[in-house]
């Protein structure tokens, strides 16, 4: 086994990981930085984000307004100290990205342009047409090439954290091209490994988003926070789950049911705004949870269109005209045309809610530190938590930057303050045990179970029992099914025994991670007997602040047991829980 020694290891080279790496390189040029990623950085799923990144820069906007939009959007489950820090830092981070070359769309006077976004009372979403995440990722990746201190290990699949005496001292990984195990001994590890939307069948998430990092931290004893909050994006293409950005609605697109009726006005988001003149924070500019839930109700009423890929409603952009669509939404126009055969200039696009984002994740405090010394986390894999029960669109790209950098700074402070040194011999023992565990996968007798088969069963139970609406019965069935699937995973064998670029073993490990996480999602959802944000219970339809104004914390209890669910108070500084109002009735 190859051993690499480094000061800080970062797992994941998407937006958060790259931002953290650059921050480390800038903090101290003498620091050795190892950036591990299971794909080349530019393949990271940040590239698929379309709409934009929120940050207050315009004179008509205020930090307070961004704060209250975010906290209300999160149904008061956000930690308000974290939100405040996030919002204060956002404009600086976005400006820094501008200095690094990000091709933000502009006003005619050359200043950065902003667009309206769901749940935001004021236009504050910076965007690069409809490829904001792509440009952010490539700007960060290309900028990272300036820093020789950043040593990248591309296509290296991290499997486990190395924990010695209650401190994280590195991680173990499989080098895909050789199949060899690597141990990266580090004084601190930052997880930036993304979400796990792939545990659901219909998702905007790429194949790589299997929550490996979350599962790794979970198995190492770090609680996963608020895992029941899974965001459905209201406008995905039905056949593939491809994302049509919220920018579509930001620019004035509307949702219609099978009768052409703008149904959102029936779900507390009216009155109907005039076509082409969207009113901020109402109707189609409501938050994602409400829009996806409204879809479900329309479906129950039989107002959706039946397609071969299930029920859909229409996204109507025809009134925007070709010129505006080409300027602001060229990518999604092409996507809809190619994958659904619909030109949004002339026709309405059938869409449906698809799993998009996990508000929950690795429990961190406001400094991006986890309870496990030496372990930090940022980005979708982490839960700091600024997104609460429902993330507002365009907050997550900014989150990558703000907390990616913060995790790096915290890691540096941790190394300096604690004077931590790596216990090489102990780390090596841990790594050897991990290697044995991975090798054992190859030795399992070949049975009937297949990765694809187990995965499909996971899809079915997650979609059926832990979707937009849940109840006691569905969640109980899902948790039971997931417990069974985790058992059966133990007998799943790796059929491909070869070393080089073995994606078979990778898929087995990814499925294992997803099953662990799926169980935390379902168990947390089962225990939360209320409806809040993206977590909606048919049997507990109201928000219950007396019992559940709390973060749920799922802790690992071994390969066969379900997680222990515990609760942690939400930090409230200046905004007491109130009514989420998207009717446009008051300011």
């Amino acid at each position, binding site marked *: 086994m190859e051993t690499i020694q480094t000061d800080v290891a970062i797992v994941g080279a998407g937006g958060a990981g790259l931002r953290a790496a650059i921050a480390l390189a800038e903090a101290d040029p003498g620091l050795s930085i190892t950036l591990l990623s299971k794909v080349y950085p530019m393949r990271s799923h940040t590239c698929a984000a379309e709409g934009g990144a929120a940050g207050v820069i315009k004179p008509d906007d205020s930090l307070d307004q961004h704060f209250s939009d975010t906290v209300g959007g999160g149904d008061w489950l956000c930690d308000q100290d974290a939100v405040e820090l996030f919002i204060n830092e956002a404009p600086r981070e976005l400006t820094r990205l501008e200095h690094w070359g990000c091709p933000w769309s502009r006003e005619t006077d050359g200043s950065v342009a902003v667009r309206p976004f769901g749940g935001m009372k004021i236009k504050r979403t910076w965007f690069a047409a409809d490829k904001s995440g792509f440009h952010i990722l490539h700007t960060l990746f290309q900028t990272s090439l300036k820093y020789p201190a950043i040593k990248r290990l591309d296509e290296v699949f991290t499997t486990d954290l190395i924990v010695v005496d209650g401190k994280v001292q590195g991680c173990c990984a499989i080098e895909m*091209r*050789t*199949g*060899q195990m690597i141990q990266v001994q580090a004084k601190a590890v930052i997880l930036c490994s993304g979400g796990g939307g792939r545990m659901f069948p219909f998702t905007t998430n790429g194949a790589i988003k299997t929550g490996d990092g979350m599962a790794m931290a979970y198995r190492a004893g770090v609680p996963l926070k608020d895992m029941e909050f899974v965001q459905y994006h209201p406008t995905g293409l039905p056949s593939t789950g491809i994302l049509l950005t919220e920018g579509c609605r930001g620019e004035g697109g509307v949702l219609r049911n099978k009768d052409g009726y703008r149904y959102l006005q029936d779900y507390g988001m009216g009155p109907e705004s005039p076509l082409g003149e969207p009113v901020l924070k109402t109707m189609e500019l409501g938050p994602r949870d409400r829009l996806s839930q409204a879809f479900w109700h329309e479906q129950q009423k039989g107002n959706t269109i039946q397609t071969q890929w299930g029920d859909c409603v229409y996204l109507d952009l025809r009134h925007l005209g070709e010129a505006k669509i080409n300027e602001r939404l060229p990518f999604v126009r092409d996507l809809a045309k190619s994958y659904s055969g619909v030109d949004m200039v002339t026709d309405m696009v059938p869409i449906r809610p698809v799993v998009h984002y996990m508000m929950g994740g690795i429990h961190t405090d406001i400094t991006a530190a986890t309870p496990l010394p030496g372990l930090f986390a940022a980005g979708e894999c982490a839960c700091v938590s600024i997104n609460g029960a429902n993330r507002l669109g365009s907050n997550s790209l900014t989150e990558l930057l703000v907390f990616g950098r913060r995790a790096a700074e915290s890691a540096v402070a941790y190394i300096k303050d604690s004077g931590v040194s790596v216990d090489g011999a102990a780390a090596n023992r841990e790594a050897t045990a991990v290697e044995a565990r991975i090798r054992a996968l190859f030795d399992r007798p070949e049975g009937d179970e297949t990765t694809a088969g187990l995965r499909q069963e996971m899809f079915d139970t997650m979609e059926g029992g832990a979707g937009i609406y849940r109840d006691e019965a569905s969640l109980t069935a899902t948790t039971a099914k997931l417990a069974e699937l985790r058992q059966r995973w133990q007998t799943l064998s790796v059929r491909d025994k*070869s*070393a*080089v670029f073995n994606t078979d073993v990778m898929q087995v490990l990814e499925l294992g991670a997803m099953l662990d996480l799926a169980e935390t999602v379902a168990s947390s959802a089962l225990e939360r007997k209320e409806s809040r944000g993206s977590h909606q219970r048919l049997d507990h339809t109201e928000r219950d602040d007396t019992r559940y104004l709390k973060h749920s914390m799922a802790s690992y209890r071994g390969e066969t047991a379900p997680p222990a669910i515990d609760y942690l108070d939400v930090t409230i500084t200046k905004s007491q829980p109130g009514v989420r109002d998207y009717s446009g009735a008051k300011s």
Partner: protein
Amino acid sequence: MSRKPFVRPVPATTWYMRNGRYLRYMAREVSSLFIGLYMAGLAMGLMRLAQGPDAWNAYLTALSSPLALVFHVLAFAFATYHATTWFNATPKAMRIRWGDGYVPGPTVVRAHYALWGLVSLVILVLVGVI
């Protein structure tokens, strides 16, 4: 080390047989042989002109030989092909600003074709008159 990346060799002399795109490219490149030979002939002709009427007339006679005619038919075809590929590619290499964008490629190409027609007409008329 379990790696053993397999390198597929690219045949140095016949690579362009792989697809039509490459063959079209080679046809464009080969046009230079014909254009070059034609111009070499023209340069020689100019020298013959300087040498007096007899030399010039011998040159004109040589031009009417079947071999010369066949060559010129081919050269004409390749030169025309060169011209079309050249004009079609011009907007890629040379962009002309127009307001907040560039003159659209097809417009640039069409302008080139128009000018080409004009220049060709002038040349034909001049040679015809002389």
